């Protein structure tokens, strides 16, 4: 007997199984329902896609209607019929219209593209008498026959009509033919007919658009009631057995289920959806195999589902067991990994610390080396000093060559700097400065002195504040010190040059001022000479006339006196007394002397005026051939007053050619030389002026018998402001200006002098151009 408890258990199990069975049945129903919905959706999608493509194609073909209307409105077509109606013949004018029409249609054909190739394979215009006026097409096309054209022509309806030109069966050459009647003056005048490749339409709107559609699962085909307009190659590798497609005439609008047979004669159940293209004989049909969408049997589903359930259960058990072992191993592995990571962390930290220390040390070393610092550390109580390699190397030593004692350092410091160093050090050790810092020289191993910037501070003191240890650095500042010295020297030099420039500029300014002054004096003298010259002209002239008058009067008086004897004696005595009283005899004898002196004086004034003009030559500022002797003579006249009381003038003017110079400037040079010569003479002496020719040069010397110039001063006499004259008597610029002017006139000026004997100035000027 089965215990109740066990029965209950079995019952429970049965119920569970029943529930599971029911649940499976529910799943199966759901699955079936889903399959149905999916299938219906696929069919709807197929229908929708087919309709969509058909709509696009219809729209495209509708646009072609517009093309035909455009063509019918061609101006060339109108012109042809206008000319025809005017009676023009093909030979005389109408032929040109036909040519224009053909050219126009051909341009249109080439312009309208479908993809990259012409949309219209052919355009024909046939007139009402069935004459083909224009037939434009791609090269190589056959001539269209009028019998063929007649099929497409309709004279009645003014709409675009569609026809199919099937061409060779399955050749892919089938074409859609559109025709449109042309009316001229509201009467039928001809037809426009155009051809479009159906293969092109299929590729463009069905296949290309359906590149995803024409898969192994479905295809779309374009056809009319007679044929499909695509070849086997057009449809690719579809599961649809293309060779057993139904007759196109059997395909009706909407959906149909049909059975097709593949190459192995296996039946394939297929669903088709057909959409006719409005207004055309064309229809678009899509096919989809139904096999993939059939429902699986419930038993298959149960078995499959059960097997899957068992597999899942077994798999779950295996997975759980595997998972537990894995978890154990994983836990151990995790522990080991944690330990390993902890050690790795410690190692990393240790390594990082080591690296950091190493880097720090390297950086310090690099910093010290980079800064060229030598280190020292001084233990004050013991006097022991530690130096580093850089400290020693700075002075050209190896570290081992230096004693570790402060006395070694003291012996290297320059004696002149030691006192200052010790004072600074003492102050710091006493705590009176925050830093010990001195610049002093140290002796290098080679014996040279090197400037060092010595810095340091007390780093350790005892409890009483006494310094225990001091550390610091040495920095080589020799280059800086030398640079400072050079800079100082440069500053001094610069200051000196600035001073010299200032002096030069001042001298230049004074020089210019003096030249301006001389020029002003020259202009003034020229002006005065000009003013004097005119009155002097008539004075001299009148004196000459007066002399003549006087001579005439004297002659008359003498004749008159000879006739006095005829007068009574008393009368003769009275006149004689009057003559004596008036001193007429003296007057007559003196009047000619007075006139002669006046004439001489006037001539003198005239000469002075001429010389003054000649001297200043204010109107001559350019260089020209000049008579140097004349310059000398006119200048002497001007300065005669300066000379006549101190010197005897001795002129030795040679036979010289003209010189090339500015006469005004040379006159000034001669004036300066003569005045200087006069001033050099104490008491009375002589001045000798000589001119002579030496080759292509003319030489002028002015020699005096004055006191001479001291040898140490002679080289400075042409310097600005140098003068030996008492203060107030000379500007110190006369010879400087002379020197400058001679140079500017291409000449040279030199001086020879002997103390107590006199001085000779020699001026050399080039011979004038006309004399070379």
């Amino acid at each position, binding site marked *: 007997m089965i215990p109740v408890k066990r029965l209950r258990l079995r019952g429970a199990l049965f119920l569970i199984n029943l529930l599971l069975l029911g649940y499976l049945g529910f799943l199966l129903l759901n699955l079936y329902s889903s399959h149905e919905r999916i299938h219906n959706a696929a069919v709807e999608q197929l229908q929708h896609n087919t309709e969509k493509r058909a709509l696009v194609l219809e729209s495209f073909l509708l646009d072609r209607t517009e093309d035909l209307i455009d063509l019918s409105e061609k*101006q060339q077509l*109108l*012109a042809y019929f*206008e*000319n025809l109606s*005017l*009676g*023009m*013949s*093909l*030979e*005389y*004018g*109408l*032929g*040109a*219209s036909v*040519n*224009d029409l*053909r*050219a126009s249609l051909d341009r249109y054909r080439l312009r309208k593209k479908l993809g990259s190739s012409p949309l219209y394979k052919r355009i024909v215009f046939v007139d009402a008498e069935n004459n083909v006026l224009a037939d434009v097409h791609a090269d190589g096309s056959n001539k269209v026959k009028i019998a063929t054209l007649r099929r497409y022509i309709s004279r009645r309806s003014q709409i675009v009509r569609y026809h199919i030109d099937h061409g060779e069966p399955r050749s892919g050459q089938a074409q859609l033919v559109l025709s449109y009647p042309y009316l001229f003056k509201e009467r039928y005048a001809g037809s426009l007919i155009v051809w479009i490749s159906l293969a092109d339409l299929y590729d463009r709107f069905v296949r290309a658009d359906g590149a995803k559609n024409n898969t192994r699962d479905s295809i779309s085909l374009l056809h009319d009631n007679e044929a499909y307009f695509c070849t086997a190659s057009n449809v690719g590798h579809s599961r649809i057995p293309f060779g057993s497609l139904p007759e196109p005439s059997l395909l009706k609008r909407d959906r149909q289920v049909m059975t097709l047979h593949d190459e192995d004669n296996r039946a394939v159940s297929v669903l088709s959806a057909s959409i006719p293209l409005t207004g055309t004989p064309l229809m678009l049909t899509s096919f989809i195999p139904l096999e993939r969408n059939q429902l699986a049997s419930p038993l298959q589903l149960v078995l499959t589902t059960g097997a899957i359930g068992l597999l899942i259960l077994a798999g779950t058990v295996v997975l759980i067991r595997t998972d537990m072992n894995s978890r154990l191993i994983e836990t151990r592995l995790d522990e080991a990994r944690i330990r390993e990571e902890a050690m790795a962390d410690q190692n990393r930290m240790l390594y990082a610390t080591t690296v950091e220390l190493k880097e720090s040390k390297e950086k310090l070393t690099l910093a010290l080396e980079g800064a060229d610092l030598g280190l020292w550390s001084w233990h004050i109580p013991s006097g022991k000093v530690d130096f580093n390699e850089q400290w020693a190397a700075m002075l050209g030593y190896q570290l081992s060559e230096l004693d570790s004692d402060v006395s070694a350092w003291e012996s290297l410091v320059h004696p002149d700097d030691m006192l200052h160093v010790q004072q600074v050090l003492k102050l710091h050790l006493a705590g009176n400065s925050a830093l010990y810092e001195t610049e002093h020289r140290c002796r290098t191993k080679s014996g040279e002195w090197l400037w060092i910037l010595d810095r340091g501070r007390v780093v350790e003191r005892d409890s009483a504040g006494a310094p225990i240890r001091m550390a610091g650095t040495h920095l080589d500042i020799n280059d800086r010190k030398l640079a400072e010295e050079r800079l100082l020297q440069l500053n001094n030099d610069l200051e000196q040059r600035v001073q010299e420039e200032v002096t030069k500029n001042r001298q230049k300014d004074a020089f210019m001022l003096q030249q301006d002054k001389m020029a002003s004096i020259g202009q003034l003298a020229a002006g005065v000479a000009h003013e004097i010259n005119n009155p002097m002209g008539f004075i001299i002239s009148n004196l000459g006339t007066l002399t003549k008058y006087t001579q005439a009067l004297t002659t008359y008086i003498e004749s008159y006196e000879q006739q006095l004897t005829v007068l009574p004696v008393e009368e003769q005595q009275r006149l004689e007394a009057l003559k004596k009283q008036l001193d007429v005899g003296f007057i007559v004898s003196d009047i000619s002397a007075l006139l002669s002196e006046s004439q001489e004086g006037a001539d003198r004034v005239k000469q002075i005026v001429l010389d003054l003009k000649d001297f200043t030559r204010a109107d001559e500022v350019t260089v020209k051939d000049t008579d140097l002797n004349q310059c000398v003579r006119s200048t002497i006249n001007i300065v005669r007053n300066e000379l006549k009381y101190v010197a005897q003038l001795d002129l030795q003017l040679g036979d010289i050619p003209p010189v090339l110079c500015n006469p005004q400037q040379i006159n000034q040079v001669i004036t300066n030389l003569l005045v200087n010569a006069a001033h050099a003479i104490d008491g009375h002496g002589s001045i000798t002026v000589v001119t002579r020719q030496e080759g292509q040069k003319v030489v002028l010397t002015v020699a005096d018998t004055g006191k001479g110039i001291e040898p140490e001063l002679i080289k400075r006499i042409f310097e600005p402001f140098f003068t030996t004259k008492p203060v107030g008597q000379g500007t110190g610029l006369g010879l400087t200006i002379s020197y400058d002017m001679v140079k500017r006139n291409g000449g040279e000026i030199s001086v020879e002098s002997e103390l107590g004997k006199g001085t000779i100035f020699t001026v050399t000027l080039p011979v004038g151009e006309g004399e070379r």
Partner: protein
Amino acid sequence: MTAGDLDDIKTRGVLRHLGIPYANFVTGSGDGFEVEMTQKFAEFLGVKYQFVKTEWGTVVQDLTGKVVKSKGSDVEVIGEAPVKGDIIANGFTVLPWREKIVNFSVPTFPSQIWLIARADSKVRPIKPSLKIEKDIAATKALMKNRSVLSMENTCLDPRLYNLSETGAKVICTKGQLNEMAPALIKGDAEMTILDVPDALIALQKWPGKLKIIGPVSDKQKMAPAFAKESRELLAAYNRFLEKTRKDGTYMRLINKYYPTAYSFFPDFFKGLKQ
């Protein structure tokens, strides 16, 4: 100064093209069949191109330096004038009197003189007879007592076609050749004579306004003209023309400016590289 021969032009470095805006030979906009051909000729010679605008009444004297007066097939020199160009290239018809004063190159374009009437004229076009003489006679017969536009010293000179013998009221205009068709439409006369290139353009420009009645001349030819002394230049042009006919340049320009010319005059252009 005379029209330069080849050496003179090369020395001068410039080829002077005498032209008048006419049909599509010289459009007046800087291009045209003859403009492009002459530019290429200048390039062929290695000299610069220069366009010299002239008039129908003076075009010959601008080339030859001789003032001339045509008398039927003869020409009379009545004076001298300065030379302004080296080549006339302007849809210049080869006429007997012109051949006596200038030299023509190998013909470059076919032509004929047609009688054109306004569309509203009562005159109907002739029915072609396939014999040109009959067609000319039939056309001239229609001119009697009707006003006909023409232009002296051009290919439309009425003396060339004995228009005075037709009983037509000949009106010689002084304007440009390409103003003849507009003048006709405007009503200056009932008819005009035009050469074929100009007539074809007129038909294109004013469809339904004009009609071609028939021919008044036999087939003619057009060619660039050169001064009698410019023999080497003429020879160079003929070499240049031969080259352009072989390399396709010539037909490319014909098709550019007269697209229907080839089909209208197939014999003239036969065998030339397209």
